[in-house]
């Protein structure tokens, strides 16, 4: 693992401030390195440009276990670190599933699985129609692929050659698994298979601008 910024070392401390969502802990931590790499090396977005029409768009589709997301947003200055205390409390803008209207820099509210890919398709189409330069990224979980709505978006994105990069964090959490692998569920997509803990591998895959592109980021299994 290559560390390009000292502040990555602060993530564990930031994560530990978030309590009360232990149920989703494996889910939250499986996404940590992908999220960090996105915000640290790839996304053209900063706390100052969260409303810039030209910014890159990152959509967290799965919504579950957003602790890693919140920790990265705090580390990068999108939200105050104090927000990490008391997550999901009455006065907290951070819930166990994120609400985009409450959190600067968050593009969509999510939590119900299978919504992000369709939204990302629309975002990519909207940016293209307006000639805006931003790229569109969407992160899903392997279990989230159970939802049929994803497969509507997967097929259309390939047929329409949408400029969209989907990242599936695969911690083998789908109840019935994906025999044959996840990539074959994305026919017509460019595919990268990466170690979901290796920032260089993740970065390299995320810089590929296929239309559309799938990055399968494998992490340690949820049930080991």
């Amino acid at each position, binding site marked *: 693992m290559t560390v390009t910024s000292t502040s990555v070392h602060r993530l564990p401390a930031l994560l530990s401030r978030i309590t009360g969502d232990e149920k989703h802990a494996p889910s939250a931590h499986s996404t940590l390195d992908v999220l960090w790499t996105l915000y640290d090396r790839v996304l053209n977005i900063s706390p100052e440009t969260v409303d810039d*029409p030209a910014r890159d768009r990152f959509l967290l589709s799965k919504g579950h276990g957003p602790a890693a997301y919140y920790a990265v947003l705090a580390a990068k200055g999108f939200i105050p670190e104090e927000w990490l205390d008391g997550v999901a409390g009455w006065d907290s803008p951070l819930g166990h599933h994120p*609400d*985009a*209207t409450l959190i600067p820099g968050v*593009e*969509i*509210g999510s939590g*119900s699985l299978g*919504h992000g*890919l*369709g*939204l*990302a*398709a*629309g*975002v*990519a*189409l*909207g*940016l*293209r*129609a*307006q000639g*805006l330069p931003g790229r569109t990224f969407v992160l899903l979980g392997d279990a989230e692929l159970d939802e*049929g*709505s994803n497969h*509507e*978006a997967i*097929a*259309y994105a390939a*047929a*329409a050659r949408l400029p969209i990069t989907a990242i599936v964090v695969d911690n083998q959490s789908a109840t019935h698994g994906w025999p044959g692998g996840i990539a074959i569920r994305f026919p017509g997509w460019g595919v990268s298979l990466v170690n979901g803990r290796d920032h260089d591998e993740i970065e390299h895959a995320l810089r590929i601008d296929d239309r559309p592109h799938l990055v399968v980021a494998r992490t340690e299994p949820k049930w080991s």
Partner: protein
Amino acid sequence: MRDVFVATTTALLEEDPRTALVLADISADAFAPALRRHPDRVLNVGIREQLMAGVGGGLALTGMRPILHSYAPFLVDRSYEQLKLDLGHQDVGAVLVSIGASYDASTGGRTHQSPGDVALFDTLGGWTVHVPGHRDEVPALLRAAAGHDGRVYIRLSTRENREPHPTMRPIGSGRGPLVLAVGPMLDPVLAATRDLDVTVVYTNTPRPLDAEGLRALAGDAVIVVEPYLAGTSAALVAEAMSGRSYRSLHLGVGRGELRRYGDPADHERAHGLDPAGLRESITRFLKV
């Protein structure tokens, strides 16, 4: 009405670069010229209605004004959670334009009918619902809807009144109890109540319900005739009339499945929404 919708939407795509149209195969032929002209803004996602709603939400997130269109049961019933989350929860809007209504597709059977669509929007709140009663009412409603960022549902039908009407104004000189006729229900209501002492009022915009207008026009009785599930507006009428003593009658499409085909007039008759059926229900109510 569908033809007018196609013509108006095609013009809007030409006039306003913010406008986008998302289809799920239905009416794709009618929009073929628009698709050729604006391939970046006329998007046919195939038979994928959940995706149609998601794409609509995504387009709106980038500042565009999406118009979504299909048969009501596919546009609304099937995509209900997408409408709730991909539009409402993201705090973005779209213009949804349906065809088929409650039983326009009478020969198609239950799968192609959506008598519950307006009730579903009532569970979400914040939606404007237009039910035009005549094709000439469609362009102004559609243009107004395309001009802002709210959530709007326009319910087109093959059933229509002989002529267009302004909304929330009494028709004729009746002075008796208020009969509020929604969209295409106006002509059957007028035929049913021709010689009855009632005040017939038309609306093509049942949501938001014009509570103030209703209170002003209603005496101590309110009859609502709507071309979707009977009683859909009952809670809103009760809210509008809160604190006042009144009687009410809510007529509309029944909840039971008929399991019959035939033509839309057969279904109107079966639901008591033809002039004879309406007259029977209304006179019985007035006699009590």
